[in-house]
């Protein structure tokens, strides 16, 4: 909200410099976001929090300034102007819940023209645009007292005034020229024939005050905040008026606002007040007495007890304060503050004026319920794992949790959609991390890596939740995704990375099982017993094309909740102090036979076997077609002695013999 310092001076003589005032207000909770000089005036742009409806008026702001600067406010309440009811039309409220209190006034013989300079300046400096003297006066009154008013051209009204809900398919063309179809959500002002305003939000074109208007019907009312909120949301607009009604307006000031506007209209446009009509009852707010213990207040804020200071500050804020006992006072907040309901609200009022900066800084000794601990959560586990994966050369990425529903399948999972997505590209919670990963890779292939030394070589990872519906409710699964681009490495690099991660987690009894996954050419599942920890695979060519990836993508995903549960304790394992000895075997193997078969044989026969590795892949001409050739190096070691050459030879020969009996395998 914008307010002008000259306008404030109508209630209060301010001699603090504008800059200092801005800083005082900011430090009391009325944040001044902008301060500008405009002629002889200063314009303050303030943020009004939703609890302070009373700051949406010059009176309310003046009250705050008075409290902060310790000054007295001078308010001339306009009071009641006319004492007679007009009889020309009735005002009928359908539901007092929507509108408890309504004042209509009739002013005759007005001359509509541009406002005087001072009035235009008031309005302009508070951020509104002058229209004509009548509208400007209603706006002036709204700014000053906080109560939005509306002036109708009385000659365009037909019959009585009704405050009622809109009927189905009724519509209204607002003074903004836009037509809106209304419904039962909308509270309207209507005459006997038509809708003349969206109550508390905007007037209709059909009864707008124009240059030819002679007689005015001036509306002042209290509308239910919730009704106005629902109505303006349904109608899709937000106005100065609805903004105030939604946050509540003061019933106490309503008469004054209405009265002053009527008086000004008469004074400035040559009209005559011709009576008023009041419908409903002015809502009475019960006086609220709150007992405050000074020592509790001080303990809450971390201050020494300051009874006199507390009383003084609250009195400056227009609270009534009575002594009750040595440590106790009873306070009554002013009528304008229905946000003050309990002790803590009073604590806040005191502390914000006293100054948060005067409260000391202390570090408490933090006690803690031992049933909760850092171990209870995945957070640190995820951090440790992320550090490991980064050490393996992967860069961590963060991608959006929201995806397009149709994109999401790798495995069958029940997708959770959104009711109100911003765009169809983000209308569901993702069930895997593949597409965010692919998007990041694509971005880098297309933009970053062109012509640089990295040239399509990427290792990326993300740790984030994946989401799905299950019988028990919603599942949020912490998940690790790993990606290696084709130029960086292949499947076996990724498999090696996974083995490294599993070894870090001390999960040793895992196995890779070939499986088939949507969108992957070739894939392995990682299982521990009956549990599936995740998978790795190469994205198929169709997906690679659909995702517009310039390089192959090797992708793996691990379910971290299962990893955390399966994870083992690290224990030191002694290692042999005797040398390891190796023997090589050159093998050609039929392509239809998997290496797995060789592994089984070696492991079955392996006395003192400690490991094996492929040291060479042979691609010469003498390999029969349909075969692949390689050299395997097998390591032998004892924990008790140095193995002799002949011992090793005998173990090794057993393996050779078993291998030679295997179909489709030749020793070379």
């Amino acid at each position: 909200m914008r307010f002008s310092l000259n306008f404030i001076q109508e209630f209060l003589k301010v001699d603090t410099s504008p800059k200092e005032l801005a800083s005082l207000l900011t430090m009391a909770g009325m944040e001044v976001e902008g301060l500008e000089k405009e002629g002889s005036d200063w314009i303050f742009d303030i943020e009004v929090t939703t609890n302070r409806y009373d700051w949406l008026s010059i009176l309310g702001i003046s009250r705050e300034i008075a409290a902060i600067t310790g000054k007295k406010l001078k308010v001339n309440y306009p009071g009641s102007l006319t004492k007679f009811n007009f009889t020309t039309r009735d005002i009928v409220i359908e539901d007092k819940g929507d509108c408890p209190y309504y004042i209509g006034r009739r002013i005759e013989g007005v001359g509509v023209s541009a406002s005087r300079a001072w009035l235009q300046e008031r309005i302009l400096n508070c951020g509104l645009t002058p229209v004509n003297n009548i509208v400007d006066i209603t706006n002036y009154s709204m700014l000053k007292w906080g109560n939005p008013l509306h002036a109708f051209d009385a000659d365009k009204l037909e019959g009585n005034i009704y405050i009622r809900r809109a009927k189905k398919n009724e519509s209204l063309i607002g003074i903004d020229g836009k037509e809106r179809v209304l419904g039962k959500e909308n509270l309207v002002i209507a005459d006997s024939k038509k809708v003349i305003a969206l109550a508390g939000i905007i007037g209709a074109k059909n009864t707008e005050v124009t240059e030819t208007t002679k007689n005015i019907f001036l509306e002042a009312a209290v509308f239910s905040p919730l009704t106005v909120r629902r109505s303006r949301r349904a109608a899709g607009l937000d106005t100065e008026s609805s903004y105030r009604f939604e946050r509540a307006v003061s019933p106490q000031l309503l008469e004054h606002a209405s009265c002053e506007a009527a008086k000004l209209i008469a004074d400035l446009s040559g009209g005559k007040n011709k009576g008023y009509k009041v419908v409903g009852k002015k809502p009475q707010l019960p006086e609220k007495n709150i007992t405050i213990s000074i020592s509790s207040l001080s303990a809450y804020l971390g201050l020494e007890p300051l009874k006199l200071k507390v009383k003084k500050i609250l009195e400056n804020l227009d609270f009534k304060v009575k002594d009750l006992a040595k440590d106790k006072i009873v306070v009554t907040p002013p009528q304008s503050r229905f946000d003050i309901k309990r002790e803590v609200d009073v604590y806040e009022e005191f502390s914000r004026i006293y100054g948060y900066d005067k409260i000391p800084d202390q570090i408490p000794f933090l006690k803690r319920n031992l049933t909760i601990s850092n171990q209870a959560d995945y957070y640190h586990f995820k951090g440790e794992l992320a550090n490991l994966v980064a050490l393996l050369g992967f860069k961590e990425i963060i991608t959006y949790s929201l995806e397009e529903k149709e994109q999401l399948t790798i495995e069958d999972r029940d997708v959770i959609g959104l009711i109100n997505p911003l765009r169809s590209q983000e209308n569901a919670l993702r069930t895997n991390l593949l597409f965010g990963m692919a998007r990041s890779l694509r971005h880098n292939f297309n933009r970053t890596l062109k012509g640089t030394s990295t040239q399509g070589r990427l290792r990326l990872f993300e740790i984030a939740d994946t989401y799905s519906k299950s019988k028990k409710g919603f599942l949020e699964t912490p998940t690790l995704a790993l990606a290696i681009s084709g130029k960086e490495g292949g499947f076996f690099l990724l498999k090696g990375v996974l083995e490294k991660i599993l070894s870090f987690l001390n999960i040793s009894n895992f196995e890779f099982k070939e499986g088939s996954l949507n969108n992957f050419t070739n894939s392995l599942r990682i299982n521990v017993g009956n549990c599936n920890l995740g998978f790795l695979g190469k994205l198929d060519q169709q997906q690679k094309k659909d995702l517009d990836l310039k390089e192959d993508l090797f992708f793996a995903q691990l379910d971290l909740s299962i990893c955390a549960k399966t994870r083992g304790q690290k224990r030191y394992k002694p290692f042999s102090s005797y040398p390891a000895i190796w023997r090589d075997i050159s093998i050609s193997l039929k392509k239809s036979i998997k290496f797995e078969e060789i592994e089984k044989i070696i492991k079955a026969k392996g006395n003192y076997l400690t490991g094996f590795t492929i040291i060479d892949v042979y691609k010469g001409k003498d390999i029969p077609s349909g075969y692949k050739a390689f050299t395997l190096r097998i390591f032998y070691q004892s924990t008790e002695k140095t193995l002799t050459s002949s011992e090793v030879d005998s173990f090794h020969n057993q393996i050779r013999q078993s291998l030679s009996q295997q179909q489709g395998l030749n020793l070379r």
Partner: protein
Amino acid sequence: MENEIKGLEEEFQRDFQEANSPKELEILKIKYLGRKSTFAELFARIPTLAKEERSTWGKKLNAFKQKITSLLEGKEGQAKSEEERIDLTPPSVFLESGSRHILTTVSEKICSIFEKLGFVTIEGKEIEEEWYNFEALNIPLEHPSREAFDTFYLDIGEKDKGKYLLRSHTSPSQIRVMQAAKPPLAVISPGRVYRPDQVDATHSFMFHQVEGFVVDEDINFAHLKGVLLHFVREFFSNKVELRFRPHFFPFTEPSAEVDISCFVCKRKKEEEEVKKCSVCKGKGWLEILGCGMIHPKVLKACGIDSKKYKGFAFGMGVERIAMLKYGIEDIRLFYENDVRFLKQFSL
């Protein structure tokens, strides 16, 4: 013999002066010490000398041999290392390394600062029930205060429409913890949050927050101030100051917004510099978080006796903190994952 040795020595000195490369020195070695050298000839003549002269000349020759050997080797060593010297100014070998994302690094850093004070880190759930995101936090249905926390609702059939949502802040984890465990509590809770904001340089429909709270019998506003001052001094620099501005949040009372003194223009040092500062826009202060004393209604909603227990809570946006600390001007950079961005925060 004496003249011959002298002649040889003089000749050697001349040659030695001229020889510089390892190759030339190698030739000298052969010339003077090789099997066919004059020196070898002289040695060969020793047995022909008179008995008493043999040892004298033998010693002299050996001394001479040692001298030129050491001279040659010394110079050769120098020449060799001279040859090995290279131009050290060409580009170095490029090392690729892994990295953590700056947002997770910042989140972890924030949590660890609070953990050292005794806080426990607990992540909440991103899928929340309406009640936890709003009512329990004293944000009534259809109240204007809800507007700041608009969120995405989950599509789970008509029956539960509006019941489940993506949390719009990390505060619901406060409620979850307080329902599950009794005070004293000190918890820090990081995570993703969601609001239906169109993406631009400063908005994102998904971002990260860190929430913290303490509940115990004698907790007060001064503790909140102290804990946050400790945090910003650990995180930014031990020279920053804090400013607590009264504000409104439905779930705290009193509430405050907290600014740190601008660590770029250092505030006040030169009035003119502050005005020009592009980071704080001349204000001298940067808003970094919201906080306050937990509202008694919130404690009550969690079954905690607000007469006995008090608490404070605070929440901050990780993106905002990272943007301020590292001078990042566009929030989209965090989610685009451009390698040129990522690698600036390598391990």
